[in-house]
């Protein structure tokens, strides 16, 4: 369950984020080893997932929906919830890297495509394995540099 109101930021179940990161890791690993055009198609799917999560909200991401419908009923409610803003920003960062990779592959710059995909994969692996969210850390750094109204 999550709470949303005009005054309180949206909250998410951390375990859903870890599951989404695990699925992302598998998808990006496949992108690295599959031949064209399977690789571009799969990468485009991942770009789509990142875009949905970043712009429509984490709960609308297909990976989160999978977690909510298939996994969470089996493991019960979360002990606590987490602010959604840093992980949502992290999805945006993932979107940028994978979009760059997709464009690079389509334009024939496969090295750029591999490297950008690899960066996104490392971030997803770190998140899935130890819960370290690099995009979230970036969000905090940026937030500290622009002290607008809280």
């Amino acid at each position, binding site marked *: 369950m999550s709470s949303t109101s005009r005054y309180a930021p949206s909250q998410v179940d*951390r375990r859903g984020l870890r599951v989404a990161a695990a699925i992302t890791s598998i998808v990006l*690993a496949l992108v*690295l*080893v*599959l031949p064209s055009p399977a*690789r571009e198609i799969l990468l485009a799917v991942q770009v789509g997932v990142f875009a949905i999560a970043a712009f429509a909200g984490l709960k609308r991401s297909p990976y989160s929906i999978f977690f909510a419908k298939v996994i969470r009923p089996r493991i019960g409610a979360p002990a*606590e919830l*987490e*602010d959604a*803003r*840093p992980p949502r920003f992290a999805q945006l960062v993932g979107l940028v890297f994978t979009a760059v990779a997709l464009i690079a592959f389509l334009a024939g710059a*496969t090295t750029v495509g*591999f*490297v950008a*995909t*690899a960066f996104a*994969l*490392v971030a997803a*692996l*770190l998140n899935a*394995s*130890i*819960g*370290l969210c690099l995009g*979230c850390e970036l*969000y*905090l750094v940026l937030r500290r540099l622009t002290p607008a109204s809280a």
Partner: protein
Amino acid sequence: MTGLLILLVAVAVAAIAAWGVSKKNGRFATVAGPERLGVREIGVALGERATLVQFSSAFCAPCRATRVLLTDIAEKVDGVVTVDIDAEEHLELVRRLNILRTPTVLVLDADGAVVTRASGLPRREQVLAALGSAVADR
């Protein structure tokens, strides 16, 4: 195949980074230097035997878990108090103590001297061992 090679490199990099971060979390290191904190800096009276000072920030999930752990230890161990400090509201203290990350836990001895410190969520036995070193120095 290039893609497979890059995949293996990426997995190796992630594995090394994950191992490094996990080892660092909760690892208490002795502090050299004359840093001493008192009620003026931390807002509460020092514990009779030791004080656990935690620096937290917003959006920090491990900070909550650390606070729960330290509070539980302070309740169970005599003469130990704990305090949670919001890093963003104590920036001068953060700079003075070179706090780079949250959560950071400082262990103070009975006189308020910083004896040992760690960043990241610690395990219970790590905190208890750190407390032991702060108390044994007397």
